[in-house]
């Protein structure tokens, strides 16, 4: 099979990945929140998914899954989209996609170096999105108090960084293993 999606910006595979990725974002965003043990902070598995799909299908897919998925999730379950956070989600997908575009995980290549690269990317992406962009937009759009939105951003960003670092990394490693070449296998007695 040809390498998935990355060669053409809007290949059919990218389009479909955006559609299915957004559907996954909605479902995991609604049902995939797991209590973390820290009060009022959940493990949002949907960001592990977003990071993985950005890694698999590239920055455009990452951006659009974040934007579309988050908008639909808010709209369907909470009535109206919270635009500042929607934009932040898109940004997370975009930045991870951009910074990991040289990892060819489809060939099963995901060792220590790639793991570090992926995590640096996700830390950068989450930091920019939740520590800066989301709170600033909250202030600009909704004129919310600065200390409130920065605290919220800090908690959400930290939680997402940890979530992606653990769950996202494990998923990426496991996915890469399913893509390894099978030439060397032989039956054992």
């Amino acid at each position, binding site marked *: *099979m040809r390498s998935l999606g990355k060669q053409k910006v809007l290949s059919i595979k990218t389009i479909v990945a955006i559609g299915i990725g957004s559907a996954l974002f909605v479902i995991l965003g609604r049902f995939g929140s797991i209590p973390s043990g820290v009060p009022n902070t959940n493990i949002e598995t949907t960001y592990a998914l977003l990071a993985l799909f950005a890694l698999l299908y590239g920055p455009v897919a990452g951006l659009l899954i974040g934007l579309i998925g988050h908008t639909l999730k808010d709209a369907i379950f909470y009535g109206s989209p919270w635009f500042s956070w929607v934009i932040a989600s898109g940004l997370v997908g975009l930045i991870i996609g951009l910074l990991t575009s040289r990892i060819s995980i489809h060939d099963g290549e995901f060792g220590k170096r790639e793991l570090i690269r992926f995590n640096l990317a996700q830390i950068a992406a989450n930091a920019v999105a939740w520590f800066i962009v989301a709170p600033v937009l909250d202030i600009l759009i909704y004129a919310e108090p600065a200390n409130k939105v920065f605290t919220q951003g800090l908690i959400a960003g930290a939680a997402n960084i940890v979530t992606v670092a653990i769950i996202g990394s494990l998923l990426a490693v496991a996915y890469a*293993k*399913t893509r*390894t070449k099978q*030439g060397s296998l032989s039956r*054992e007695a």
Partner: protein
Amino acid sequence: MKKAVIEFADFGFQYRAQKEPTLHGITLTITEGEKVLIVGPSGSGKSTLAHCINGLIPFAYSGEMTGSLRIMGQEQQEMSIAELSDRVGTVLQDPDGQFVGLTVGEDIAFRLENDAIPQAEMLEKVNAAAIAVDIHEFLSSSPQELSGGQKQKTTLGGVLVGDVDILLFDEPLASLDPYTGKKAIELIDRVQREGGTTVIIIEHRLEEVLHRAVDRIIVMDEGHIVADLPAAELLSADLLRNVGIREPLYLTALKYAGCSITPDINPQHIDDVRLDEYAGKLKVWYENNNIQPTSLEYPPLLELRNVTFGYEKNRPVLQELTLRIGKGEMLSIAGRNGAGKSTLSKLICGFYRPTSGTIWMNGRDIGPDSIKERADRIGFVMQNPNHMISKTLLYDEVALGLILRGASVEHIRERVHAILKVCGLYAFRSWPISALSYGQKKRVTIASILVLEPEIIILDEPTAAQDYRHYNEMMEFLLTLVNQGMTVMMITHDMHLMLEYAQRTIVLAGGVKLADDSPERVLGDTEVVRSANLKETSLFTLALRSGLDQPSEFVRRFIAYDRRVRGR
């Protein structure tokens, strides 16, 4: 002379990732308006052949082609996928993957939308296509509201709007119940005759496809064409068995009775077979093969008493259902989509609680038991193995349930190895699961349940998407489990499976129990067959046509005899 639409000349293909070519020296010409069936076991190259015709090779799957392939007179390699898709319309196996529209109407229109056809013209064409496939009453229905058969009709409609020259069906029967499958074959036949289109059907269910006549059957095995014959001749030759394709059951029955199959008895359709003196032979065979059924008494294991359940208020999916499953039994649950089959298994496993009624196991009401507690005694294997597999290595996957239950490392290793041996997976124990075939994966999921030592195992469509050889392996494997004392409950609409392996069949319709009897008697009851979307087996028809007075008994004797023959 008719124009050739597809011409393979000494054609070969090798996938980029593979060491060996998948197709070798294919030479095949299909002419305009022909209806051709391509059969072969999985891995025979029949799907690869289809991908070459519709252009997925080389556009989606790259590799190296040798020789020549011409579609409508043009070299395939010089055509774009767009040009190819203007000529070849494909109906894929998985109806949910191909149904991309939010409603039936939109999905049929998909092709026209992509061609930027003006809306007014589009509406007209969509209507015409919807009428042609008889789905026009559902134009605004969403895929979630449709049955498998209706989705397939939509998909076919979506291909017909494109005015293609060639229709390609990739395993059209794979996800349909027997009755819907029969209707699909009739629909394909009608569309072909009305439009004069060339039709190519890829399937391994020979008998079902032959419900309507085909011009030729091409048999593939290991990347070669091993036969290219009219149906009557192919069925008269002794070739199918060697490549692992099941011949129509009525022909097997005739052969057992010592009747020779030749083209002039019209072996291609049960209604057309010239029986003449064969009727007498069948009768003799029937009388000489009175193998007494071994009627076994099973102590009750699992019981449902007056179980009623619905996902929404006032819309019960199951109503006052009472049934009993014996220890060591192998039974099947049948019924059309939405009859409550999967809901039943979910209630037993505790995913949902009955609105009223109780579920008993070993004489104890298991109502208060949690999912996990029930899972220690009731194993549930889903239809799609990919929904169950969460580890990358086979060993880890099978060990998972034990690890979660806190077993010791040595105990786990011992149990896992023992189960892997039972399941014939021991040789692969350190393999990644991604390297296994679909059938093997299915076995892995069964192993991962068996390792918990349940008393009963429930399987949803255990043989779906598997060819005859794998079907056989899977079922024989399950039979060995039953022989070791396991209780097996199978949810299935595969009639062969029911007939050959189930000791008892329970038929559900509209949430109530419609029948609870031996499979041959269930399949002999026209009323039950109709309401459960089953189909009369051709063995039954054969018995009727030969004037045997107890067709169900004939079916039973055939199965018993066949079991002995194949067991050798």
